[in-house]
């Protein structure tokens, strides 16, 4: 047996191991820097492949971004979906809870209710694009142009365009990020607490027939809702019914009953979604809801 070689080999490796572990141990004590402990936790939940597929330089950097809220855990394409969920849940636990707000659309004049005044000819078929050309083809100059810029911009797929070419917000998916508020050229979105159920879905300042000539569901400022509602809740100002949400607790569906055009509505069912927080997920869930294979390849 060439003991000599054996001893050298073992000595070299043990020596290197010891040497560097000492260096690292010292460094670990001397060069310690405080960091948010959640970063470690998230890093642990990540695959640790340091592959960079998320666009960040390594898992730790990604974890930092996630903890800071700058990144979506879903950007990690290597992690199994359940892992991503766990991270989201881990961080979600610490997120503060207030009443959920959602985006509401203040126009009900889809293509069947509100007609166009002009043909638009052009290759930029977006609401924004049309709105800079004579304010858009729609006769009602406040109304939704129906080309779905809002649906396009929503990162959470919370907006779908209805057959009537009107956006429909899914309150469950909406995170009140405000992107749709920003994009809509007609300023038709507002973010409001889900508890506000009495909504005037019209922004037209025209009164009477002038309003309803342009759109069959416009608010014509007849004042019936204001009469039927508890005093002070609804006011007619500048040709439009306006709900005073400071008195929201007084709101009742009856106010909408006599509206001749249906411009004021009481949200119910799917559109309402009054639950303040999401229901508890079942423990140990490993299924993959809505998981999209395509995201793997992005």
């Amino acid at each position, binding site marked *: 047996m*060439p003991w000599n*070689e*054996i001893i050298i*080999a*073992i*000595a*070299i*490796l*043990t*020596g*290197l*191991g*010891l040497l*560097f*572990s*000492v260096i*690292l*141990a*010292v460094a*670990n*004590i001397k060069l310690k820097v405080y960091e948010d402990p959640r970063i470690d*936790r998230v890093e*642990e*939940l990540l695959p640790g492949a340091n592959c960079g597929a998320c666009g960040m330089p390594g898992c730790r950097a990604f974890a930092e971004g996630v903890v800071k809220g700058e990144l979506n855990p879903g950007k990690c394409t290597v992690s199994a979906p359940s892992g991503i*969920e*766990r991270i989201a*849940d*881990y961080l979600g636990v610490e997120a503060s809870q207030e009443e959920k707000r959602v985006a509401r659309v203040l126009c009900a004049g889809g293509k069947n209710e509100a007609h166009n005044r002009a043909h638009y000819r052009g290759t930029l078929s977006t609401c924004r694009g049309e709105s800079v050309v004579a304010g858009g083809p729609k006769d009602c100059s406040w109304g939704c142009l129906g080309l779905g810029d809002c649906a396009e911009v929503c990162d959470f797929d919370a907006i779908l365009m209805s057959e009537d070419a009107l956006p429909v917000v899914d309150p469950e998916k909406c995170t009140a990020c405000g992107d749709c508020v920003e994009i809509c050229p007609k300023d038709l979105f507002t973010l409001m607490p889900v508890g506000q159920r009495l909504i005037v879905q019209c922004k037209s300042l025209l009164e009477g027939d002038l309003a309803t000539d342009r759109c069959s569901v416009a608010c014509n400022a007849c004042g019936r809702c204001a009469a039927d509602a508890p005093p002070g809740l609804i006011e007619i100002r500048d040709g439009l019914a306006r709900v005073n949400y400071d008195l929201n607790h007084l709101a009742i569906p009856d106010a909408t009953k006599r509206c001749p055009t249906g411009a004021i509505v009481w949200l119910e069912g799917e559109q309402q979604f009054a639950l303040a927080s999401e229901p508890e*997920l079942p*423990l*140990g*869930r490993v299924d993959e809801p809505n998981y999209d294979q395509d995201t793997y390849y992005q």
Partner: protein
Amino acid sequence: MKEVDEIPQEKEPGSAAMIATLGLAGFLSGVILVSVFLYTRPIIAENKAQALRAAIFEILPGTEHYEAMELTDGTLKVVEGSSDEENVVYFGYDTEGRLTGVAIPGAEPGYQDLIHVIYGYRPEEGVITGLKVLESKETPGLGDKIIKDADFQSNFDALKVEPTIEVVKKGEKNSPNEVEAITGATISSKAIGRLLQLSVEKWKTPIDEYLKGDPK
């Protein structure tokens, strides 16, 4: 989800644990590696030697055994085992102990990277008797014809090194010191030519001197 909380909150490991772990890992790995190494070393050495032997027998026809010689301070000395490989050549002898030629390894940049070859050289006649490419990254199907192309290889059946080795286009060879290039791989062919020329220049004198001093 509650699962998260089940992940044990590790307490800060002490430095001693770190040092011990790595030291131990090094130790164990040393043990494993040295055992595998000792077990495979003779086999690998045998493989290598066999490959070398095969190459030498191929480029020095009639060789029965060979001897490694190292160039130190301008003179050739017999060496045992491995050594600085750049300066080692192999003297081949036939069954009767007559010199069949010298196998000389060499390397030169080709189209992609260094081309490593070993070639047989007969000092008495000043001819190259064969060439084997040991390693090349030349383009498969093009530059790597220097390995397989029979026409190209036949250049080195008896290539005169005097006055100098020249590379010419295919079909233009008309004297024994010329190498016919491979069409479409002129660069690789030229690299071989250059390699041989430089290598012969380097080795000719020491070999001649050695043979003069040691007439076998």
